[in-house]
């Protein structure tokens, strides 16, 4: 049975249809409405990029109180897979589902740039179709993408192998600590990254390198999910 992706549409989401298209290349995909907490039947929840709730106050801060977020947290607690892209990553850190926080880019600007990221850990449901050391060309586009974790937390994340993607040398334009581009939780079922894999699934639009990430998810055994 095909993996079922549910992409949450918040008011202010921007990349939800792009994400839907990327996911439907490898499985079944549908949009989920932020006001509807019923996510049953969904194997992988994806929080897409954008400016949910206008990103007002602090990126990702307000969205974590959307009605659907409780269901997403429950899904994660059950071992279900959750992927947060850009704004979705910010939301997951604000919601405490991922460690750390995202701060304004060092250059203080929105920056849209194709970046190379390397796969640090290929032993996760999100990267199982990759090899360690693979370099993927993916666009990044954000104003608030500087990954930060206090030193102790950072040590834990690093030693637990939670860093999944790092910017290749020279590519870390936002100033993320340890060049971190994407991290997962200790259970490895929740993953957030700043670059946009959904925009790297077709050579016609620039690169298909990130298809592997979606293929990994499609290949991952379904371990949990909200009943």
């Amino acid at each position: 049975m095909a993996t079922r992706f549910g992409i949450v549409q918040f008011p202010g989401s921007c990349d939800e249809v792009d994400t839907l298209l990327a996911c439907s290349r490898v499985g079944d995909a549908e949009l989920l409405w932020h006001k509807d907490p019923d996510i049953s039947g969904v194997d992988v929840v994806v929080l897409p990029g954008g400016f949910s709730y206008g990103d007002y106050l602090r990126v990702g801060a307000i969205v974590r109180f959307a009605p659907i977020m409780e269901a997403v947290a429950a899904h994660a607690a059950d071992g279900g897979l959750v992927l947060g892209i850009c704004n979705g990553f910010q939301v997951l850190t604000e919601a405490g589902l991922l460690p750390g926080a995202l701060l304004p880019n060092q250059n203080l600007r929105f920056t849209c740039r194709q970046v190379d990221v390397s796969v640090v850990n290929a032993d996760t449901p999100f990267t199982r179709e990759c090899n360690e050391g693979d370099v993927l060309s993916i666009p990044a586009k954000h104003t608030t993408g500087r990954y930060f974790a206090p030193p102790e937390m950072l040590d834990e994340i690093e030693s637990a192998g939670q860093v999944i993607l790092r910017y290749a040398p020279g590519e870390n334009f936002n100033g993320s600590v340890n060049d971190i581009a994407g991290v997962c939780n200790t259970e490895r079922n929740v993953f957030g990254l700043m670059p946009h894999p959904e925009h790297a699934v077709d050579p016609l639009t620039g690169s298909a390198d990130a298809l592997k990430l979606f293929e990994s998810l499609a290949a991952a055994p379904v371990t949990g999910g909200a009943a």
Partner: protein
Amino acid sequence: MPVTAQVLIRPKVGILDPQGQAVEEALPALGFEGVSNVHVGRLVELQVEDQSQLDAMCQKLLANPLIEDYEIVFEAGSGTEG
């Protein structure tokens, strides 16, 4: 003696403040009732040698006088009122 100052910058009355609105609407969802008139602005804290320059700094850089009001506050005990 450098003085520590706070500059409070807020949207001018009548200027659209979508951030304040967003926060005001989010709070009840979190169970916080009875909150109103929420406005989100900026806080700039700095140390200045010459506090008489602060007003000009606000006008020229720290605030946008067209859409923002500002208020300069000196930290208690760290200087005289400007």
